[in-house]
């Protein structure tokens, strides 16, 4: 008793089961990616910022496109190999297809990595600085006078991760710990005094007895003061704070720390100054932050150059209405540690591979006051809706690539023996796998221009 039409086609529909199945699945995938593309359109039409163009690594995207196209050819060749009863042709083409899939994913990994390590900072006037952060990331350094636990959700293991020795008061990002990630104190090592004078720590058992005592006294919070001065060195990514000010830090479990903010300056190795959203590029806050007046000068020169070019190629048009011009002229890319180095690099030419992960770079380092920052993030979905949709669509697409690769690997390992015993069944398998694979390729053919180029 077997299910009919698993290998041969049913005469009236002309199809075998899995072929109907995979096409139906693709119809549903059309709607899935259709929904995502509709969202893309929706978000792009509604974007209240400059939609990034050519901001992803075009070379890598282009390379990956070629990889997928190549694998589309090989998978259909693998199918043809089975049909022509040519084992070598089948085997090698299928193998190459799978390897291409993993090559694609590896390249994608490096693209993602570059974005995760890259930050954007929106200044109060709308100017955007892009760049990298020092290894320890952006941290608030805060000296604590008192810690109030809120028992409903308090979780000492969570916020005590950030407890360190107190910071020196003179401030600045570089403190007595030398700027490197400050060692945290072990949770048993930090002693607190309760309001009625008892000394305790926040290690599990002590915390539970504190909680029990509070319950007895019908209180749901307790205020503790550190016996020896402590500080909190909070890395702001991935941590999010409920709130903060000069005098308080509130963690997400309801714990409130009172004391004094020692430093909330961000250090950034700036590689792009984007003044498009600032009311006046010449008065952008960036220039004060960049300190060296040479940067403004370099910016002006570049802008002049682009303006000249624009006037030549589009006589009579208003440059301020051309996205292309604005992007070239008001979004200033930095290619050196100092203005002089930047100029020199420019004269010399950047080299074809200057934007690849292995290229070395030197950028000016600046300090940005927290009060000047409107918001900041690395280039993850949080940064803007463009990166949000970029990661979502390419992430889902990547998941499809992985799934396709695994399925084809399964065919290669477990079904290849059918080549002798049941070649038509094998051909069907490769055909279904191939149909899915072509679809994945097809989605990418749209993704590449929509996300990288246009």
């Amino acid at each position, binding site marked *: 008793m077997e299910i009919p039409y698993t290998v041969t086609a049913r005469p009236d529909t002309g*199809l075998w089961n899995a072929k109907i199945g995979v096409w139906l699945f693709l119809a549903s995938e059309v709607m899935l990616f*259709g929904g995502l593309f509709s969202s893309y359109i929706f978000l792009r039409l509604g974007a209240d910022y400059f939609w990034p163009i050519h901001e992803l690594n075009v070379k890598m995207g282009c390379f990956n496109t070629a990889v997928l196209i190549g694998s589309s050819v090989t998978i259909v060749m693998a199918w043809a190999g089975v049909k022509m009863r040519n084992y070598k042709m089948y085997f090698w083409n299928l193998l190459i297809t799978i390897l291409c899939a993993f090559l694609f994913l590896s390249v994608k990994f490096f693209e993602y990595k570059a974005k995760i390590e890259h930050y954007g900072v929106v200044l109060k006037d709308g100017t955007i600085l892009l760049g990298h952060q020092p290894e320890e990331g952006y941290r608030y350094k805060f000296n604590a006078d008192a810690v109030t636990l809120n028992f409903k959700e308090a979780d000492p293991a969570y916020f005590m991760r950030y407890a360190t020795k107190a910071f020196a008061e003179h401030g600045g990002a570089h403190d007595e710990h030398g700027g490197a990630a400050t060692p945290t104190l072990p949770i048993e090592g930090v002693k607190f005094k309760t309001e009625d004078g008892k000394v305790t720590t926040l290690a599990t058992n002590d915390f539970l007895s504190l909680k029990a005592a509070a319950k007895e006294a019908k209180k749901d919070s307790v205020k503790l003061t550190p016996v020896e001065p402590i500080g909190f060195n909070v890395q702001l990514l991935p941590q999010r704070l409920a709130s903060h000010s000069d005098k308080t830090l509130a963690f997400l479990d309801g714990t409130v720390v009172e004391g004094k903010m020692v430093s909330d300056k961000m250090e950034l190795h700036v590689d792009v100054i984007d003044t498009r959203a600032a009311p006046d590029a010449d008065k952008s806050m960036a220039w004060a932050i960049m300190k060296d007046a040479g940067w403004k000068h370099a910016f002006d020169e570049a802008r002049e150059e682009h303006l000249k070019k624009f006037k030549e190629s589009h006589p009579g048009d208003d440059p301020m209405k051309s996205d292309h011009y604005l992007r070239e002229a008001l979004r200033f890319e930095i290619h050196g540690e100092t203005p002089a180095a930047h100029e020199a690099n420019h004269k010399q030419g950047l080299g074809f591979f200057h934007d690849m992960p292995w290229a070395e770079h030197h950028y000016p380092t600046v300090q940005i006051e927290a009060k000047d920052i409107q918001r900041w993030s690395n280039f993850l979905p949080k940064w803007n809706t463009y990166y949000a949709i970029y990661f979502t669509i390419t992430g889902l697409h990547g998941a499809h690539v992985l799934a396709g690769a695994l399925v084809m690997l399964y065919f290669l390992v477990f079904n290849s023996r059918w080549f002798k015993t049941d070649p038509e069944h094998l051909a069907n398998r490769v055909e279904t796998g191939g149909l899915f694979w072509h679809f994945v390729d*097809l989605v990418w053919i749209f993704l590449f221009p929509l996300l990288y180029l246009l």
Partner: protein
Amino acid sequence: MANSPEEVAKHVKTYLKVGIALLFLTAVTVWLSYVDFGTHSRNMTIGLAVATFKTSLVVLIFMHMNHERPLIYKFMLFSMLLLGVMFTLFVFVRDDGLLLKGYEAVFGKH
């Protein structure tokens, strides 16, 4: 579908040619995206036209949609139709004024 070995063998060359055409068109897409056509929507239209052409090659040749069973055309046409509905209505409902804008673009403002 006629899928005899001889017939498949004939197709193999086509597959290679299509692959090369696709690579070439990718290069074209990249190049076109750096050309300033004046307005961005022109870049958009041109880029998407090339992409659509590329996908139709994949669909017709690699996925054998140039000679498929009617049933499969029906599935795909139906889902493409719904996709069209989704694309257009989402945009129109988002901004009803769009119809008006289109009108104004053609006939000028009142």
